[in-house]
C-alpha cells in the first residue's frame, strides 16, 4: 500500500504530463505541418485526418510512457526526493528528457548502422538528468520556474487529451468494424 501512497495527486501528474505532452505532440505537429502541403497534393481530407488520428493515438501512448519515468521515481525513491516536489522534479526531468529526445531524434535519423556509442551516452544522459532533476528540482527558484511553466502548459491538455481519446476511438473503429 506504501507504493500507492507515493503516487502523486492528479493535479501534479497533469502538470508534469503537460510538459511531456508539449514535447511529444509538438514534435509530431511540427512534422505534420511540414508534410501537410505534400499530402494535400494527393490525399483527401478524411485520409489526412486519419493520419492525424493515428499520430495522436501514438503520441498519447508516448507521453504516458514518458510520464511513467517520474512516476516510477516517485514511487520507488524516498518520498522527499521526488514525491514531495513532484511537479518541479518531474517537470525539470521532462524538459531535460524532451530536449534530449529532440537531439537524439536527429542523430538517430542520420545513423545508418547500429552503434552502442549512441545508446550508452543516452543512458548516461538519462541518469544525469534524473540526478540533476532530483537535486535542482528542490531548489526554490528552479522549482518556481518549472512549476510556473508546467502550470501554463496544462491548458493544452484540454485539447490534447480529448483529441487523443477520440483518435484512439477512431483507430479502433477503423480496425475493428471494417
Amino acid at each position, binding site marked *: 500500500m506504501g507504493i500507492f501512497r507515493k503516487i502523486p495527486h492528479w493535479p501534479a501528474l497533469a502538470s508534469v504530463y503537460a510538459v511531456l505532452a508539449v514535447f511529444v505532440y509538438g514534435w509530431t505537429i511540427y512534422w505534420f505541418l511540414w508534410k501537410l502541403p*505534400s499530402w494535400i497534393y494527393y490525399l483527401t481530407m478524411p485520409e489526412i485526418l*486519419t493520419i492525424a488520428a*493515428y499520430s495522436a493515438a501514438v503520441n498519447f501512448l508516448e507521453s504516458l510512457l514518458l510520464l511513467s519515468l517520474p512516476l516510477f521515481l516517485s514511487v520507488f525513491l524516498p518520498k522527499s526526493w521526488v514525491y514531495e516536489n513532484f511537479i518541479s522534479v518531474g517537470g525539470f526531468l521532462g524538459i531535460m528528457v524532451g530536449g534530449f529526445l*529532440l537531439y537524439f531524434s536527429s542523430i538517430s535519423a542520420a545513423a545508418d548502422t*547500429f552503434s552502442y556509442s549512441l*545508446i550508452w551516452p543516452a543512458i548516461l544522459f538519462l541518469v544525469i538528468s534524473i540526478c540533476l532533476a532530483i537535486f535542482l528540482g528542490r531548489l526554490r527558484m528552479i522549482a518556481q520556474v518549472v512549476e510556473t511553466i508546467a502550470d501554463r502548459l496544462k491548458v493544452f491538455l484540454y485539447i490534447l487529451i480529448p483529441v487523443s481519446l477520440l483518435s484512439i476511438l477512431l483507430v479502433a473503429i477503423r480496425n475493428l468494424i471494417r
Partner: protein
Amino acid sequence: MKKLSRRDFLKSAAMTSLAVMAPSYVKTLADGLAGKSALPNIIVLIFDAMSARNLSLYGYARRTSPNLERFAEHATVFHNHASGGNFTTPGTATILTGTYPWTHRAINQAGLILRRRAGRNLFSAIGDRYTKFAFTQNLWADYLLNQFEHQIDRHLLPTSFSVADNSWGSVFANDLNSSNRALDDFLFQSDARPASLVFGPLEKQLFLHQLARLSVKGYSRGLPHDVTNPKYFHLEDVFNGVNSQLGTLPTPFFSYIHLYAPHEPYRPREEFENIFKDGMKQVEKPESPFADGSTVQALLNRRTNYDEYVANVDFEFGKLIDSLAQKGILDNSVVVVTSDHGQLFERGVHGHTTPLLFDPVIHVPLLVSLPGQTARRDVFTPTSNADLLPTLAKIAGNEIPDWTEGRVLPTLGGEEDLERPIFTVEAKSNQAFSPLTHATVAMRKGNNKLIYYSGYTKEPWFELYDVGADPEELTDLIPSGPVFARVMKEELLTSLNDANVSVEN
C-alpha cells in the same frame, strides 16, 4: 497490282500472325467461356524498374537476360512497349487500371488512384471466376492494391519473404493504407526524421540493431532492400516464396506479383558481381537541364551494377519458370512479364525520379506466353502497359471494359495500329485532383516520339525524336520543323486537354 505500303505490310503481317495464333488462342478462350475449370491461370510478373534497354533480350550488348530469352522462345515479345509513368506509382496504376496517369491520377509519390475510379481495376476486369492473388514488395504499389483489397482473395503483405523490416502499419491489417502511411511513412519513417519523438528513434535503433545481426552471406554488397520503407530480403527467398504461393492457389487463379528487384540499391548475389568487365562505353549525350550531378563515370558504374543485378533477377526468374513448368502450372497458364517503369543512366541523370521521359526510363519489357505456345512471336508496334487490362480481361473471357484507355494487344486478339498514340505521363509535382499543368507527357506514334514539358519554366517546350532512326534520342527534330510535328503537337495537347476536362468533371 497495288503496291503495298509499309503500313499495309505491317497490318497484313499482324493479321497473318493473328490467323496463325487464332486457333489455339480462340480454343483457350472458348474453353474458358465454357466453364471455370477450363479457364487459363494468369500470372502477371512485374519487375520494378526493369528497363528494356538493359536486356539482352532486346539487343543490349551485355548478356543480362539469358533466361528471359529462353522464356521468349515460347512467348510473344513486344519490342516497343511503354510504361504509363516513370516511377512506381503512376506506372503501376496504369497496369492496374488500364488507364493513363492523367486519368487514374496516381501521379504523386505514394499517391493513390482517384477514389471514385478505384473500383475499375484489373481485379474487377478479371471477374469473379478467378481466385485472385496479389503480392508486391513495393509499399507504394501496395497502397494501390489496398484500394481494391475487397476484390483480392489473397493479398500478401509487402514484408512477406523479407528477413528484416520495420513495418508497423501491417499490424493494423484492416486499415493498411492509413496505418502504413501514418506509421511507416510518417511517425516511424526511416529515411528522414521520424515524426514520433519517442518511438521513432527507438524503433530505428532497434531496427538497426536487428540489421547488424543479419546474415548477409552471399551478398557482399549487402542485402537487397526497399529504399523508402526498408525491408531486407534475399532475392532467392522472394522468388521461392512466390513459387510456393503459386503452387497453393486454387485454379483458375489470377496472380499479380510485383517484385522490388532490380530497383536500386543494386545488390546482386556474389556470383553476379563483376560479371560485366567489358569496358563498355556510354553513348555521349548532352546533359539535361534536370541533371542530378551524376558524372559520366558514376553513371557507367551504376549501370554496370544495375546490369549485374538484372542478370541475378533473370537467373532467379529462370529458376521460377522452370519450377512452375515442372509442377505443370505453366501448362494452363498465361504468363505476363513486364515492368512498371525503366531506369535512366544518361544525360547526368540516374534513376527514374526525374521529369525526363527518355526511352530507358519508359521502355519496359513485355512478354506474354500463352498455354501451349511453342513458337516465339515478335511485335514491333508501340504498345502500352494500359493494354494489359483489356488483354487480360479478354483472356479471362470477360467483356473489355469501356473505361479502359488501353487496347487488346496485337496477336492476343488486338490489331496492330501504327497510327495509335501511346502516352506516358510524369506529373509528380502536380496536384492529383487538378488539371495537369506541371508535367511531362510523351506521345509515341509509330517511330516518332514527341515529348512535352510543361510548368518547369515560364514557357512549355517540345522535343521530337525519330526513335526508329535515332533510338538514342540524340537529334531533336523540332528545330527542323517537320510538318508532322504540328499535327502531333495538336494531338498531344488535345488529348491532355480532354483528360484535364474529364478529371475536372
